[in-house]
């Protein structure tokens, strides 16, 4: 007997056409597609603010002494910095910043202690990833206080003679990627991911429950169409919508917020495409799990919250507690935030970004599998 298993392009295409036609006639959804991104960008773009702690910091030190140890521990006590790496040289520091492994690199020059004692007034260089200026601003303010607080409180032993005098060294801060510390430079690219997450999950979240509630599901189920054909077919029109929305957000970012754009536009669209696909599969999965439209909406909200809070959109990812980071590193938005900021502000290349690209693809494949598993092939 002939078995009937393969994916049929004809059936899949019939679903795609149907979804496009239905979407075309749904005026309210169409209005939402344009209005929501613009509104949210303007609202969030001006409002959001943060004050994170324990941000990962690397140190380049060729001078180990009581003095330098005192400085380092003073920085740690400020609560803003957490030393996670010892790097050999400046290149390594630059690379760590560019990959987003650390937010700060503290560079203590050779013979620093000697030069302090000789009264040469040396300087410590702090390089900061200022992509997210609110994240780094408070930390940098604390670091500027360092010389005077170290001299007033912490010098003992052979350095005691310096105590109480004016600061014997300085801290120089070097902001990378967003030197003027403009908040919107960070928020606006981040918003691209948040808005796309919300719209994509919401729109497909209703895709299957809607068929159920209108009674058209019975008809669909009686036809020989396979779950994978339905699910991927229903996603396609929304991929187009995702790309349109990304374009709107990009235009608002460049024209209204005057964001700089250092990266490759094609690379940006490539990662948007992957990200949109990831979120659409989430929506389809929630839709095939939910019993009705209300449940689908609730599940959408449930998915949406961690995305806002622990994806690195609101608070810097590396400043969050470990457990939150673990959960956060499941979410595609976490990777997308890094990708978009990287492309916009750092001009990162594909190979820089790859570590944040593949997790989204794995996520999509897994979620699609779950969605197909949960899809009910009968009316039971």
């Amino acid at each position: 007997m002939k078995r009937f298993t393969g994916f049929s392009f004809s059936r899949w295409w019939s679903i795609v056409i149907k979804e496009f036609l239905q979407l075309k006639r749904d005026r309210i959804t169409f209005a939402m597609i344009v209005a929501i991104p613009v509104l949210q960008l303007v609202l969030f773009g001006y409002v959001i603010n943060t004050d994170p702690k324990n941000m990962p910091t690397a140190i380049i030190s060729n001078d180990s002494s009581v003095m330098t140890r005192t400085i380092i521990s003073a920085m740690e006590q400020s609560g803003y910095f957490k030393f996670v790496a010892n790097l050999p040289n400046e290149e390594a520091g630059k690379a760590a910043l560019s990959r987003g492994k650390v937010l700060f690199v503290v560079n203590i020059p050779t013979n620093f202690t000697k030069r302090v004692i000789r009264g040469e007034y040396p300087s410590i260089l702090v390089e900061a990833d200022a992509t997210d200026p609110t994240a780094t601003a408070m930390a940098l303010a604390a670091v500027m206080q360092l010389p005077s607080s170290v001299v007033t409180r912490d010098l003992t032993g052979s350095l005691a003679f310096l105590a109480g005098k004016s600061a014997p060294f300085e801290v120089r801060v070097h902001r990378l990627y967003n030197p003027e510390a403009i908040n919107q430079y960070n928020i606006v690219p981040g918003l691209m991911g948040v808005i796309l997450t919300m719209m994509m999950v919401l729109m497909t979240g209703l895709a299957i429950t809607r068929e159920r509630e209108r009674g058209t599901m019975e008809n669909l189920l009686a036809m020989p169409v396979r779950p994978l054909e339905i699910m991927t077919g229903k996603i396609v029109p929304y991929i187009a919508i995702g790309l349109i929305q990304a374009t709107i957000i990009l235009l608002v970012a460049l024209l209204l917020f005057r964001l700089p754009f250092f990266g490759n536009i094609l690379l940006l669209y490539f990662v948007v495409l992957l990200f949109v696909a990831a979120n659409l599969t989430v929506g389809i999965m929630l839709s095939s799990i939910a019993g009705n439209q209300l449940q689908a909406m609730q599940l959408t909200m449930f998915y949406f919250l961690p995305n806002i809070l622990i994806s690195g959109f609101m608070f810097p990812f590396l400043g969050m507690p470990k457990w939150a980071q673990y959960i956060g590193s499941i979410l595609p938005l976490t990777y997308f935030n890094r990708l978009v900021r990287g492309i916009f502000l750092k001009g990162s290349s594909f190979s820089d970004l790859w570590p944040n690209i593949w997790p989204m693809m794995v996520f999509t494949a897994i979620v699609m599998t779950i969605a197909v598993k949960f899809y009910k092939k009968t009316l039971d």
Partner: protein
Amino acid sequence: MSDDLAINVINLNKFFGPKHVVKDVSLQVKKGEIYGFLGPNGSGKTTTIRMMCGLLTPDSGSGTCLGYDILKESAEIKRHVGYMTQKFSYWDDLTIRENLDFVARMYSMLGRSQIINETLETLGLSDRANQLTGSLSGGWKQRLALAASMLHKPDLLLLDEPTAGVDPSARRDFWEELHRLAAKGISVLVSTHYMDEAERCHKVAYIAYGKLLAQGAADEVIASQGLSTFILKGTNLSKAMERIESAPGVQQTVLFGTMMHVSGLDKDLLRQSLQAAASEYGLEVEEADTGLEDIFIHLMKQADSN
């Protein structure tokens, strides 16, 4: 032997929660046969049909449709069966043509646009092809759904109340079409509440409270119940009603304006009682053939009292 059966299901059972909705239903439909499926509202017709085409999983029982196992080969069944749902289930926000086009693509049909044009022509919807389906009247929606479920030329049609709300002349056309299809070897299981439609089927099955109470050709079903029927005529019928209903031997009465069908199992007793009542109220009595409707009402009453 089972090769000439389009539907062959055995002891199907279905529960919804604690409710036992279909009870040990076995049904055989031969190829080229039009099989009527009757029963009161909520008796389990739709549920049974859904189990046959793989939309519901039976809790127990087995069977085949067109030789494919209803439990394991529902994908094959779906390709060769045309199922028309009781509730209209095409897309209101697609046009008539778009709905038909969707179906045609779904079954990977060749020569799509020509087939669709012909269908629209036959339906008489050619000039409204680009109208949104949601704007059609109920009866027209029904006719469209019917045409759509036959579009891919299925070998078996499962039609759940296809003519509900359809006008008499369209219904006649529809039944002529069904007989044409049956002559070509296509099998049809059709649920209906109309007696005239039941009489046009090769065979009928009657289900109440989830149980099949009778099945077979209409005359067999009638004969199997051993019911006798008399017709009373006259102007005082409504006054005599109470008296007749409580008379010995009378099982059921059905009033049709100026005449009344009275049925009972004991023919002689029934005749005596009716003649007595007739002379009292000045009515005419004559013996009549028991119809399917009398039988179904009888079956339902019996099921009710159990």
